[in-house]
């Protein structure tokens, strides 16, 4: 496009140039001021973006796999998650408290934040788009069984459903049920069965694929 020749100026490259909100303008202004005054550098900002974006549900899967493999660890994790994760080198940080709950044949926990999008980001990374959607947030508290069925999770009536609404300073991590036929598996193999959704409660851990088929 560099060869064309006319007298109007082009807008800067942007995903949605007409949809810049007042908060984005505010963020840009503050960021530039902080940089101009030498309080933070562009490198600082990009390092933080890298850290934030590098977090994903793999860390959560590693924790769950360890809990499945080591029942004493699981018990301690439920009782004192901050300490147990600290021992694993995972810093829960300054955020809200973390609470770990376990799904079973009797009880199925599912997590939501009806007020916004509170999520255990330090363990699962950024929440998926549907978690932040008005549809999920408003429906899962009112008709959890129907919503879970839409996720492909049919919870029998004999299992109690418990919705955990992250209304304030707690964040929740679900330990999904360990799939059958995984007795001999090491933690690394177990972690591959732990999906992000299973740690929110909108999914189940993956079943073992039979290698003989």
């Amino acid at each position, binding site marked *: 496009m560099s060869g064309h020749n006319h007298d109007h100026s082009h807008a800067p490259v942007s995903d949605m140039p007409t949809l810049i909100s007042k908060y984005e303008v505010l963020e840009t202004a503050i960021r530039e001021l902080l940089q101009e005054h030498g309080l933070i550098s562009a490198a600082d900002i990009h390092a933080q973006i890298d850290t934030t974006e590098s977090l994903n549900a793999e860390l959560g899967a590693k924790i769950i796999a360890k809990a499945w493999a080591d029942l004493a660890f699981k018990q301690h994790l439920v009782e004192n998650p901050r300490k147990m994760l600290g021992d694993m080198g995972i810093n829960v940080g300054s955020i809200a*408290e973390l609470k770990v709950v376990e799904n079973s044949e009797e009880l199925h926990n599912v997590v939501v934040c009806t007020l916004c999008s509170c999520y255990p980001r330090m363990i699962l990374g950024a929440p998926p788009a549907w978690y932040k959607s008005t549809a999920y947030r408003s429906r899962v508290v009112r008709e959890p069984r129907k919503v879970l069925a839409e996720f492909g999770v049919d919870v029998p009536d004999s299992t109690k459903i418990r919705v955990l609404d992250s209304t304030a*300073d707690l964040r929740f991590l679900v330990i999904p049920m360990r799939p059958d036929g995984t007795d001999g598996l090491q933690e690394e193999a177990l972690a591959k069965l732990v999906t992000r959704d299973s740690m929110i409660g909108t999914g189940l851990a993956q079943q073992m694929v039979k290698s003989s088929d």
Partner: protein
Amino acid sequence: MLNSIPPQRFKAGDHVRVLDRPSIGHCRTPVYLRGRSGIIIGVAGRYLDPEKLAYHKPGMPAHLLYRIRFRQVNIWDTYTGTDADDLEADIFEYWLENATKENKK
């Protein structure tokens, strides 16, 4: 005393009702739980007041935050799941009152 800590008003097992009042500005008490009763299952701790923090105030004094369990059939008149299904939410003390027979919905 300006910053004295008030005594804890509720304990685990108490039946409480979420106040049914309007809120102005930022608030962590969902509208769908206002006026609904549940049982306290624990104290989450003392946390800075989100209704002040949101407006760049220090959020002091910190308030007690309770973990509360509600039966779904007590929240929704048209709940279609099972009687056993429940929901847990964390509500600050100043949004709670003792539940009585009259308001135990």
